[in-house]
């Protein structure tokens, strides 16, 4: 659904930074700023993008990884000021935009074919 014009005007005032283009199936690393008291440090979170959702200022993406044998999914808003950088590590070949079938797969079955450039 298209957003109303006045909502777009409000969203256009939010600062947007350029990140490399990525889509579902890609393996990415998100460098995320974490505030602890007065100190700020950067934590990196890497995994497979399983969906990109929404448009404008409310757009998010979900990154899934297996941590200590437990599947972890984290949702990031793209315009979040806490995202420092995003690196694309691998381009994957998948046939759909939302690869939720990955949740039911483990180990060797959960591999994604890499795109040859």
């Amino acid at each position, binding site marked *: 659904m298209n957003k109303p014009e006045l909502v777009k*005007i409000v*969203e256009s*005032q939010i600062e947007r930074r350029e990140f490399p283009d990525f889509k579902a199936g890609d393996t990415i690393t998100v460098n995320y700023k974490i505030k602890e008291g007065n100190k700020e440090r950067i934590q990196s979170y890497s995994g497979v993008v399983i969906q990109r959702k929404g448009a404008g*200022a*409310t757009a998010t993406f979900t990154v899934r990884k297996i941590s200590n044998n437990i599947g972890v999914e984290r949702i990031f808003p793209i315009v979040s*000021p806490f995202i420092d950088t995003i690196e694309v590590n691998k381009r994957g070949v998948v046939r759909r935009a939302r690869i939720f079938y990955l949740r039911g797969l483990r180990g060797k079955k959960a591999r994604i074919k890499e795109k040859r450039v």
Partner: protein
Amino acid sequence: MSGLLGKKIGMTSVYDASGKMVPCTVIQAGPCVVTQVRTKEKDGYDAIQLSFDEVKEKSVNKPLMGHFNKANTTPKRMMAEFTRFEVEHRKDFGESINVEIFIEGEYIDVSGISKGKGFQGVVRRHGFAGVGGTTHGQHNRLRAPGSLGASSYPSRVFPGMRMAGRLGGNKVKMINLQIVKIIPEKNILVVKGSVPGSNGSYLKIERWS
């Protein structure tokens, strides 16, 4: 009090100074024209009537058209009275008030007609817990209201007993919504949180100080 009429446009999110995401609603607020002035001497109370949102001339009947002609303005769709309007923001008959009467960061009340939800049961309408389990032979009463009261005394159901029925479509006022942003050129008012009604519905925005 001071206030405006507005239209709910939609929701989005913005980020505050600390980087926190703030869910907010975008409201098109004003400009509103003063189309009637009520005075203590004539009407028994002090108020001004504001009108908002352009409408085609053909969809307004003649008596209402005369009302707008008197204020020297184009026909409007939404009208409401604001009692005891603050003197510093008050405008004279025929003049218009815009969103600049508000300041970013202050708190306002927004009222509108909530979304109609049709005929709903007691669990959704009144927050009843329903029947907990489906064991001990319990079945098909999961969302039932239970007992309506005692038996031979009083032999009737007390008035006001909460039961299933129409939900929504009432006037609802959200109080103390913080103004996150104002864009005067486009008459945009962004408030923290949600407001009643569907997108495109009319709202009455008030500030009490």
